[in-house]
C-alpha cells in the first residue's frame, strides 16, 4: 500500500513517506493484525469452555479407556522377581524352570496374597488360559503357609500343592504375558493368541470375534442398503410435492425420528413376535399355518427390520436436502431430447442425487455399526453386533483389555468413515430436520 502511494508522485495530495497509519497512530498493518488477533482470541474464548469440557470428559476418557487394550502391568507388578527370573528360561525347551524361578515365584506370591492381588492376577491370566483363575486362588491359600526362610526347596512343594505348577504350559503363559505393553488383547480380538512362538490362531471353537465383526459389517451393509431402497422413493416424493404436502410428509418421516428409541424397539417386538401383529395377520389370511409362525424376532431379521426403521430418517433427510436443489426441468429436458423415462432417471437424475445417497449411507452405516440397544433387545444371539460383545466384556466378563481392543478396532472403523464423511459432505452440513 505504502509503495503504491509513493509511486504516484503526480497526485496533488501530500506524499506520505512512512507506512500507512491507523487513526491512533500505529501502523495500519500492525493495527489490522492486532484486530485480527483479537478476533481470533474472542472466537477461541467463546469456544474454549465447550472444547475443554468435551476434551476432558469425552475425548480423553475414551483415549484412556482404549489404552487399556495394550496396558498389561499386572503380571510384571505382581510377580516382579518371577518375571526377572523367567527371562533366561526358554519355554520351547520343554523343561520346567529351575529352582530359582520357583523361589522367586513363592516370594512374589506370599506378598501378592498378603495384598490380595493374586486372584486378580489369576483372573487376568485366565483370559489367556482357562483354569488359571482357580489355580491361583487355590494355590494362594496354601502358599500363604509356606515360610520363605525355611521351606526351601520350593519346586517339589509347589508341584505338590497343584500339579499345574509342574506343567511347562503354566510357566509359558506367565512368561508370555509378563510384558508391560502387550498386543495380546488385540490378537485376542481377532481370534488369535500370544504364544511364545508368536501370534497363533485360537482353536476353532473359540473363534467367534472375527465372525462377529464380519456379521456386524454385513448386517450394517444390509441395513444401509435397505435404507437406500426405502429412503430414495420417499425422499423423491417429498422433494417433488408442492411445499404444503411435502412438509406434511416430512413430518411423517420426522415423527419416528423424534420418537424414543425404546418405544420404536418395543413396537417392533409387538409387530414381529410369534403372537405379534404380522404373524397374526398372516395366520388370519391363511398365508402361513398357525403352527408355522415365522420367527422374526431375536434373530438377524428382527435386528435388520427394526434398525432399518430406526435409521431410515437419517437416510431420507440428506437425500431430501440434495433432491430439493435439483431442477425438475433437467428431467423434462432429457425426455424432450428423446430419453426414455428410465434413461432420463438413470443418466440425468440419479447421478445428481449420488452426493445425497453417499451422505445418507455413510451416516447410517456409522450409526448402524456401533448400535447397541436395539440388537440387545431384538437381536437374540444371532442378531447381535460387536457393541454387544464389548458391553458383555465390560460388565459381565470384566475382561476390560479385550473390550478396549474390540472398541479400538470399532472406533478406528468409525473414525475412518467419519473422516470420509467430513471430506465428502463436511460435518457442518449435517441436517437435522
Amino acid at each position: 500500500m505504502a509503495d503504491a502511494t509513493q509511486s504516484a508522485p503526480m497526485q496533488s495530495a501530500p506524499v506520505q513517506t512512512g507506512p500507512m497509519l491507523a487513526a491512533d497512530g500505529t501502523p495500519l498493518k500492525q493495527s489490522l493484525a492486532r484486530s485480527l488477533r483479537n478476533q481470533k482470541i474472542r472466537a477461541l474464548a467463546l469456544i474454549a469452555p465447550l472444547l475443554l469440557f468435551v476434551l476432558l470428559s469425552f475425548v480423553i476418557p475414551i483415549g484412556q479407556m482404549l489404552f487399556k487394550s495394550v496396558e498389561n502391568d499386572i503380571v510384571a507388578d505382581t510377580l516382579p522377581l518371577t518375571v526377572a527370573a523367567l527371562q533366561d528360561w526358554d519355554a520351547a525347551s520343554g523343561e520346567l524352570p529351575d529352582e530359582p524361578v520357583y523361589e522367586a515365584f513363592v516370594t512374589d506370591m506370599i506378598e501378592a496374597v498378603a495384598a490380595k492381588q493374586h486372584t486378580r492376577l489369576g483372573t487376568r491370566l485366565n483370559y489367556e488360559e482357562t483354569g488359571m483363575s482357580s489355580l491361583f486362588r487355590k494355590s494362594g491359600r496354601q502358599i500363604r503357609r509356606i515360610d520363605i526362610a525355611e521351606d526351601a526347596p520350593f519346586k517339589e512343594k509347589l508341584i505338590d500343592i497343584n500339579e499345574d505348577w509342574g506343567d511347562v504350559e503354566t510357566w509359558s503363559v506367565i512368561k508370555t504375558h509378563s510384558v508391560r505393553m502387550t498386543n495380546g488383547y488385540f490378537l485376542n480380538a481377532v481370534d488369535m493368541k500370544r504364544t511364545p512362538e508368536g501370534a497363533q490362531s485360537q482353536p476353532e471353537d473359540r473363534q467367534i470375534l472375527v465372525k462377529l465383526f464380519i456379521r456386524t459389517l454385513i448386517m450394517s451393509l444390509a441395513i444401509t442398503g435397505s435404507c437406500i431402497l426405502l429412503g430414495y422413493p420417499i425422499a423423491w416424493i417429498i422433494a417433488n410435492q408442492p411445499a404444503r404436502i411435502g412438509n406434511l410428509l416430512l413430518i411423517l418421516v420426522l415423527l419416528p425420528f423424534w420418537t424414543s428409541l425404546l418405544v420404536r424397539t418395543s413396537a417392533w417386538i409387538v409387530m414381529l413376535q410369534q403372537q405379534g401383529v404380522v404373524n397374526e395377520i398372516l395366520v388370519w389370511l391363511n398365508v402361513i399355518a398357525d403352527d408355522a409362525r415365522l420367527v422374526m424376532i431375536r434373530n438377524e431379521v428382527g435386528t435388520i427390520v427394526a434398525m432399518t426403521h430406526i435409521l431410515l430418517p437419517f437416510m431420507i433427510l440428506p437425500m431430501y436436502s440434495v433432491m430439493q436443489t435439483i431442477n425438475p426441468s433437467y428431467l423434462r429436458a432429457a425426455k424432450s431430447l428423446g430419453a426414455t423415462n428410465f434413461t432420463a432417471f438413470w443418466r440425468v437424475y440419479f447421478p445428481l442425487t449420488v452426493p445425497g445417497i453417499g451422505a445418507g449411507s455413510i451416516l447410517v452405516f456409522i450409526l448402524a455399526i456401533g448400535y447397541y440397544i436395539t440388537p440387545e433387545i431384538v437381536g437374540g444371539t444371532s442378531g447381535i453386533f460387536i457393541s454387544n460383545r464389548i458391553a458383555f466384556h465390560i460388565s459381565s466378563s470384566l475382561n476390560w483389555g479385550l473390550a478396549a481392543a474390540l472398541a479400538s478396532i470399532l472406533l478406528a472403523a468409525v473414525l475412518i468413515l467419519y473422516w470420509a464423511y467430513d471430506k465428502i459432505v463436511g460435518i457442518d452440513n449435517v441436517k437435522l430436520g
Partner: protein
Amino acid sequence: MATFKLTHVERKPMSFTMPVIAVTGSIAGFLVGTANGSGLIGFLAGAAIAAAVAFVCISFLSDGMEKLGRWGLFAVLVAIGTVMGGALGFVVSVLFGAFFQWFIYWIGEGRYRTKLAPYLTPGQVLWHFSFKFICGSIFVFLITPILVVMPLSFNAEDFFTFTEGMLRFDPEAYSLKHYRDFFTNNEWQRSFKNSLIIAPIATVISVTLGTLAAIGLSQSHVPGRRAIMAVLISPMIVPLIISATGMFFFYSDIGRFLEGTIGIDKTTVGYIKVILAHAVLGIPFVIITVTATLVGFDRSLTRAAANMGAGPVTTFFRVQMPLILPGVISGGLFAFITSFDEVVVVLFVGSASQKTLPWQMFTGLREQISPTILAVATILVVMSILLLLTVELLRRRSERLRGMSPA
C-alpha cells in the same frame, strides 16, 4: 387444487374399467376368502362381483346418480360385512366400502388422469400410481409400528399381544390399568422423576456452552475450525457403547474425588455424573442447529448495534439472541430428547438411584415384558409429537425472521 384439471377427463370404456376393477376386487376377495376358508373361491367371486358392480355403477348410477351409487355401494358392503363377520367384519367392510365406492368412479370416469400431464402414456400413468403406492407402503412401514403401540397400551390383559376381545372391540378387553400402574408404581414414578431432573439440567448445560461455541465457530477467522468442529460433533458419531465405557472409567474417578475429597453425598454425585455425561451427548445437536441458524445471520446487525453504542453483552442479548433463538430452542429440544431417551450411558455411569425412564423400559423389555411399557411408550409418542410440532413451528418462525420464504 381439487378443481384444477390438467387433462381433459372422460369416461373410460367398459373394456378398461371392468378388468381393472375385477383385478382389485379379486385381491379383496382373496383376502376375505382366505380368512373364511378358500382363497380361490374368494378370488373368483371377488373378481366377478367387482366387475358386475363396476358395470352397474358406471352404466346406470353415474352422472346425477353418482352420490346414490356411492352411498348405496358403501351401505351394502358394510351390511354384508357386519352380518358375516361381526365387529371385525364391520371394520374390514367399512375400509373396503370406502375404498371401492371411490375407486370405481375414479377409474370408471377416468378421473385419475386429472392431475397428470396429458401426454403421458398409459404405462407412465400406471408407473406413476405404482410409485405412489410403493411410497405409501413405505410410509406405512414408518408409521404403523408407532401407531400399533397405542391401542395395545389399553389392553386389559398383561400381554404384549392383541387379545380376542380387543379384536371384537369388547369394552371389557380394554382398560386403563397400565396407565394406572405407571402413575402409581413407585419404580416407574421414580424413574420418570429422575428423567425429568436429569434431562432439563443436561439440556441447559449443553445449550449454554453449545450456543457460545457455535457463535465462536461462526466468526470469520477461527484457527483450526474444522478440527474443532470435528471434535465437538464426535459425541454423535462415536458409538454410544464406546462413549459409555470411556465415561464409566472417567466418572468413577470423578465420583470418588467428589465424594471422598470434597464430601458431597453419594446421590448428588450420581446425578452430577449422569448430567455431565448427558450434556456432552447433547452438544453436537445444539452445535449443528445453532450453526445452521447463524449461517443466515446478518453480521452487519451486530456492527450496527456496536455503532449505536451497545456493548457486546447488550448486542448479544438484544440483537443476536432474539434472531437465533429458534435455532437455539430446537437445538435444546434435540439435546433434551437425546438425554431423555438415553440408555447406554446412564446404564454405565449412573447407579440405581439415578434410574431413568429409558433404563426402566430397557430392563422391562429385557426381563419381564409388561404392557406398562406400552403405556409409557404411548405417553412418550404423544410427547414426541408435541416436540416435533414445536420444532416445526420454530423452524418456520426462524425462516420468516431471516426473510426466507417458508418452504
